[in-house]
């Protein structure tokens, strides 16, 4: 939803620049939320076996997917329209956290851990770097996509886009969590058999 917030700020301030300025703290908040999950994954990964980590990730995703499917309409409570940059950062952090954005890429993080260390399940410096790189790439990609959508709506499509094309991402997101969770579970079980 970051693009929408950025768009509305752009409209309110009647400035395309406001869109990009607000997207920076929104992306930073999102990245921080994901980094927190990455640190958790790496931390837990250094304590338990990779196989257990995969199972844990899959089960958490599935559980959270079911939870979101039931409460897909709930959002973290936020407080207003007049926002400063730190508000946007906090808002984005909370939204990403509540929607399980970090959780969603946990299987990829686990995969990166898997690929980067050979034999030992301890997190190496290089895998840590790889995780951070993944987060940076993910965040930049998100920034570009959000900026692009907000910009296109702002300059070309107009506000009626919101009425016609705002599909229920919350519902789709819950489904996506379940799909990724199922894939991760399948990977964990199949991968476990191979070792």
């Amino acid at each position, binding site marked *: 939803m970051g693009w929408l917030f950025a768009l509305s700020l752009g409209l309110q301030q009647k400035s395309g620049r406001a869109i990009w300025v607000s997207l920076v703290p929104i992306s930073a908040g999102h990245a921080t939320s994901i980094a927190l999950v990455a640190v958790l994954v790496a931390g837990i990964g250094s304590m338990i076996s990779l196989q257990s980590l995969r199972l844990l990730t899959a089960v958490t995703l599935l559980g959270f997917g079911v939870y979101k499917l039931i409460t897909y309409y709930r959002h973290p409570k936020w407080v207003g*329209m007049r926002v400063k940059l730190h508000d946007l950062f906090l808002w984005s952090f909370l939204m990403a956290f509540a929607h399980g954005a970090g959780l969603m890429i946990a299987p990829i993080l686990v995969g990166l851990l898997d690929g980067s260390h050979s034999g030992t399940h301890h997190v190496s410096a290089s895998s840590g770097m790889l995780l951070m790189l993944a987060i940076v790439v993910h965040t930049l990609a998100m920034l570009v996509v959000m900026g692009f959508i907000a910009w296109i709506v702002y300059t070309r499509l107009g506000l009626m886009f919101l009425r016609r094309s705002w599909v229920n991402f919350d519902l789709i997101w819950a489904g996506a969590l379940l799909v990724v969770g199922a894939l991760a579970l399948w990977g964990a079980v199949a991968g476990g058999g191979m070792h």
Partner: protein
Amino acid sequence: MPLLRPDPTFYPSPRKAMEAPPEKLAYVATLNYGNGRPDALAVVDVGPDSAKYSQIISTLEMPHVGDELHHYGWNSCSSALCPYAPHPHLERRYLIVPGLRSSRIYVIDTKPDPAHPHITKVIEPEEIKRHSGYSRPHTIHCGPEAIYVSALGSGETGEGPGGIFTLDHFNFNVQGAWEKDRGAQKLAYDFWWHIAYDVMITSEWGRPSQFENGLILEDLLGSRYGHNLHFWDLRRRKNIQTVDLGKEYQLVFELRPAHEPDKQYGFAGVVLCLKDLSSSIWVWHQENDRWAVKRVIDIPAEPADPKDLPPPLKDFKAVPPLVTDIDLSLDDRYLYVLCWGTGELRQYDVSDPFHPKLTGSVQLGGIVRRQSHPKSGPLLGAPQMVEISRDGKRVYFTNSLYGVVDDQFYPDKLSGWMVKVDVKPEGGIELDRDFFIDFGETRAHQVRLQGGDASTDTFCFPS
């Protein structure tokens, strides 16, 4: 069923909402005062091509007697598109209908058949009191993250300060009192907001004991009813400024902020000026980062023969206009002002809010004039509650204020009626001679239009 696309009645901006299709149904709160029957929600056919045009097509009676249905609203509206708490896949589906006297709230479902709504939940007064401390629920507004309800009373006696509480969007549970710091505010009545600026505005009627047995003349003459406007930080739930209109301006009622979210002004209607019995309209606006008010419309009382006047007015030898409801079209161009005493609906062009121009007038009912409609005899009551269609072309209104107060000013016991005027494209209004609904001894109050109207929607995006 969850929606995959936004509710089609949600619009990002007021200008876009004006392109909405015309309403086919109107919901009308009707009340039975003192005849032992329950209040009801009537559904009126307003489709001009319908065979039942201007007829009541169904009536939903409440399960209790004596609720005094007053103002009510939708569970959700265009504010669901607001970016800080978007819920675009909520439905504008439930009418949240409070009983001002019983403190009970009915949740009425307009699906699957909008012409035959049904009650889906009843929030009992005890629940409201337990979770919020409040009683006498009044105005409903659909906020982005909750349903907001104003309440005129609180505490064991009900005489505590009135204020605001919220209902959960999804299950209608009472969440609690809204205010964190009410400052000087004690009395409550209407409220609305400048949502894009995180500002709420509230107005003042009086304590429940000052109206539940009728208006008290001594309190009125002693300036003991409300005469303040309060401005709040919507985000921090804090009273940031109280503006006193002056003690002689009694009963600050309806609040109509500009719909356009980047504007910061609005209109407040004041029922009575003690000096000359006039009614007035005030504009609030920003001045050096503070809120200021300016009186922009005065509607004078009309001289009258005491024998034509009800007891409270006999000594004054005049009939006051008693402006008790106002409404602003979605393009912020026309303000409709209802004179419940003299019996007149006025249209003002408020394109320049500080210099309103009177552009239209329709006389109907009135304490002295009792002006009839082409389809009626002499009418008791007068234009009291108004609602404007989203496209701004049709204006509906009813004639009852509040059971016991009706009887003070219209002691011959008014009966309920509903009327419509058409708005001319270049300004001006004209009575629809075919539209007249007689509710009999049942009284008619708030009107809500299917899909939304000019006093139930909040928009976050500028046009």
